[in-house]
C-alpha cells in the first residue's frame, strides 16, 4: 500500500511515458479516476487516449511513471495479471471474437466458474438483443450488436474498473442513446474510465474529464467546469459545439 495515494481514487496514473517501437507515444500522462464515477478522456484523434488505456492494462507497458490501481503499483506487470486484478477492457472498433458465438465470447471472459451465470440477468437487462442472439457467431452480428457484446464481455467477471474505448464510434443515434443508458447503469456499481469523441455523450455521462493532447495530459477537472469553458473545448477538442448555452442546456437536462 502506498500511503500518499488518496484512498478515494481507484486509479492513479502518474506521468507515464510509453514507447511503441521507436515512437514516443505518451510523453507524460497523468490522471486520476475516483471510485464509483465516470471519468472521460478527451482529445483529438491520435492524441494518445487509446495508448493510455493500453498502458494502464500493460498491453503497451509504460517505460516510466507509476500506475496505482486500488492502492497497488501495477506498472510493469503482465497484462493478464493486471486484468485479473479486476480491470475490464472494451477496446475500440468493437474487437469481439468473430469466430466465437455470443455465448462463447461471454464465456471466455469468465475468470471464475459461474461468473456468467451470476451476471447474466444484469447483462441481458442492459442488452436484451444479446439474449436473442446467444448462439449466433460473432461475425453475424451487426455493428451495434458487436459493440454491445464488447461491453457485455467486460461485465462478465467482477471488475472494479472498466476501460471503455469509444463506445459510440460508428453507431446510429438511437444506439448511442441505448449505449449511454447502459454505461450509466453499469457505472452504478463499477468505476469507469471512458474514451469518447462524441462530446455530447461524454459531457452527459462523465463527472470528471482529462484532456490528452500530443501524448500529454494537459487539463483535468470536473465536467461541470469544462462545459463552461468553450475556449478550452475549441482549442483542444475542436468540438463543433456552438454556444456555451447549448452545452449547459445539454448538461442541465442530464442532471
Amino acid at each position: 500500500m502506498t500511503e500518499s495515494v488518496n484512498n478515494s481514487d481507484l486509479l492513479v496514473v502518474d506521468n507515464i511515458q510509453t514507447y511503441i517501437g521507436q515512437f514516443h507515444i505518451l510523453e507524460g500522462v497523468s490522471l486520476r479516476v475516483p471510485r464509483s464515477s465516470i471519468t472521460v478522456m478527451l482529445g483529438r484523434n491520435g492524441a494518445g487516449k487509446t495508448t493510455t488505456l493500453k498502458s494502464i492494462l500493460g498491453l503497451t507497458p509504460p517505460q516510466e511513471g507509476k500506475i496505482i490501481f486500488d492502492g497497488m503499483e501495477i506498472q510493469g506487470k503482465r497484462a493478464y495479471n493486471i486484468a485479473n486484478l479486476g480491470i475490464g477492457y472494451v477496446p475500440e472498433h468493437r474487437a469481439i471474437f468473430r469466430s466465437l458465438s455470443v455465448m462463447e465470447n461471454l464465456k471466455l471472459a469468465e475468470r471464475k466458474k459461474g461468473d456468467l451465470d451470476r451476471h447474466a440477468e444484469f447483462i441481458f437487462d442492459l442488452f436484451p438483443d444479446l439474449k436473442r442472439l446467444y448462439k449466433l457467431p460473432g461475425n453475424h452480428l451487426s455493428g451495434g450488436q458487436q459493440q454491445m457484446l464488447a461491453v457485455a464481455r467486460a461485465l462478465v467477471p467482477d471488475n472494479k474498473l472498466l476501460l471503455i474505448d469509444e463506445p459510440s464510434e460508428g453507431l446510429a443515434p438511437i444506439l448511442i442513446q441505448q449505449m449511454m443508458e447502459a454505461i450509466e447503469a453499469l457505472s452504478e456499481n463499477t468505476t469507469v474510465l471512458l474514451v469518447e469523441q462524441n462530446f455530447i455523450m461524454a459531457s452527459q455521462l462523465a463527472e470528471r474529464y482529462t484532456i490528452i493532447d500530443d501524448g500529454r495530459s494537459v487539463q483535468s477537472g470536473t465536467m461541470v467546469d469544462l462545459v463552461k469553458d468553450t475556449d478550452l473545448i475549441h482549442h483542444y477538442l475542436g468540438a463543433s459545439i456552438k454556444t456555451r448555452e447549448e452545452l449547459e442546456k445539454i448538461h442541465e437536462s442530464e442532471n
Partner: protein
Amino acid sequence: MNQKIKRILTIIIIVLAVVGIFTFLFLFAGKETFIRTTLSGLTLGSLFFLVAGGLTLIFGLMDVLNFAHGAMFMLGAYIGWQFYTNPTFIFGLLPQVFAFSSGVLLTSYMKPYLIRWKLPEKWVKALPRIAYVLALIIAIISFLGLDILELAQTAMVAATTATVGDPLAEISVQEPLAEYWFRPIFIFISGALVAFATSKPGDKTQFAPKEKMNQKLLVPIVLFILAIVATFIRETAPVVILLMNGNWRFIIALIVSIIFGFVFGAVVEITLIRPLYVRPTFIIIMTLGLSYVIRELVQLLWDPLAYQMVRPPLFAQPGKAASLLEWLRFGNTTIDIAGVTFPTYRLFVILLGILMFIFISILMTRSRLGMIIRAGVQDPQMVEALGINVKAIFTLVFGLGVAMAALGGIGAGPFLPIQPLMGDHYQTQGLITVVIGGMGSYVGAFIGALVLGMARAFGDYFALKYSLSTAIAEASTVIIMIIVLLARPQGLFGKKE
C-alpha cells in the same frame, strides 16, 4: 429450412454411397478378403490420423503449418524405442538436461534484479554476448570426453544382438561418478549464464516486478535436485527398467515419448516459433529446416539404419488367439476376427488412433482451451486483456501437438521400421488427410484418415488382383484429394472463408 433439408439430403446420399461402395466391395471381394482389407485400411487410417491429429490441432488452433511434424513423429519413435530397448542413452543424458534447464530457468529469478542494475550503455550490450560465449565454452567443456555416440549405440547393439530372456546382456559400464560429477555442475553454470544473458542486465526497457521471488526459485531447485538424483541413478535405472515386465516398460516408453514430445514442442515454440507469429511464411520455412536438422541429428546418433523394435510381450507370443480374452491372457501375435487372421499389434494401432481422436474431441469441445486459442489467433492482445496468459496457452497447444506426434511415432514403432525417414511418408499422407478433411477440422482429419486408409488398402488389393502397379494405391490418395478439392475447395469439413 430449405438449407436444412439440403443438408439432410447430402448426408443421406453420402451414407448411401458409402454403404453402396462397401456392399459392392464385400460382394466383389468376398467376406474374408473384405474383412482383412478393411482391417488393414483401418490400421493405415489410424496411422495417418496419428500424424494428422497433432498436425490439425496445431494448424486448426494456431494457424501454424508444422512441416517438422513427421520428423517429430520419427523422433518420438526413436526416444520410445531407446527407452524400451535400452534406456542407457536417456538416463545418461538426463542429469545434463535437468542441470541445464535448472540453470536456464533461473531467468525469472535473476531478471528483476539484473534489469535494475545500473550499467554503462556499452556494458548493457556487451555483457549478454560475453555470457553467451562463456556459456557455450563451459557447455562444450562439460561434454568433453563424454561419448554420446557410444551411449546412443547401446540400444542399437541391444536391438541387433539381444537374446530373449536376458535384457541386461548389453548394459555397458558408464563413466564412474568421480570422473562424471563435474559435467552436470558445468552445464548448470552454462545454463545460469544463458539465464544471465537473457535477463538483459541493465536494460531499462525490460519489465520484471520483484514479487513472489521465492516461488520463482521453486522450479529451478526441483530441477536441480532431479539432476542430482539422475546423476546417481544413471547406471542402476536402466537395469531396473530392463528388468521390468515388458508390457509395463512399453507403456512407460509411450509416456516417456509423450513427455519428451511435449517438452521438445514447448521449447521449439518458445525459442523458434514465438518470434515468427507475425511472419507465417517464415514459420513454414523454419519448421521445414528444423525437420532436416532433426533428421541429420538422428542419423548422426543412430546411423542411417532401420531398426526393428521388439514387440512388447502382449503381442509377441507366436500363435493365433481365438478370442479377445485369449489374446489378453496369452499375448498372441495374431487374433482370429470373423475367420480372418489379423496381427494383434495392428488392433493396438487402431485403438491408439481412436483414443487420440477422443482426446482431441474432448480438448476441442469440452474445454475452454479451444475457445481461448480460436480467440487468441484472431486477437491475442484482447484475450490477454481478459486475464488469460495467451503465450502460455500457445506453448501448451504446440507442446500437445508435438506430444501427439511423438506418441504416434512410438505407437507405430513396433509396427514400422524405425529409421530417419519414417515420418516423412506419413507426414505427406497426414497433410493430404488434413487437406481432404478441411484445414483445422479434427473431425475432418479423422474421416479423411479413414478414407485414405481404406483407399490405400483396397487400392493395394485391386492392384494385386489385376496385377497392376502398386503405384495406383499410392496415387489413389492424391486422386481423392484432387476430387475433394474440386468438389469442395474447403475440404470435407472445412469452413468457407
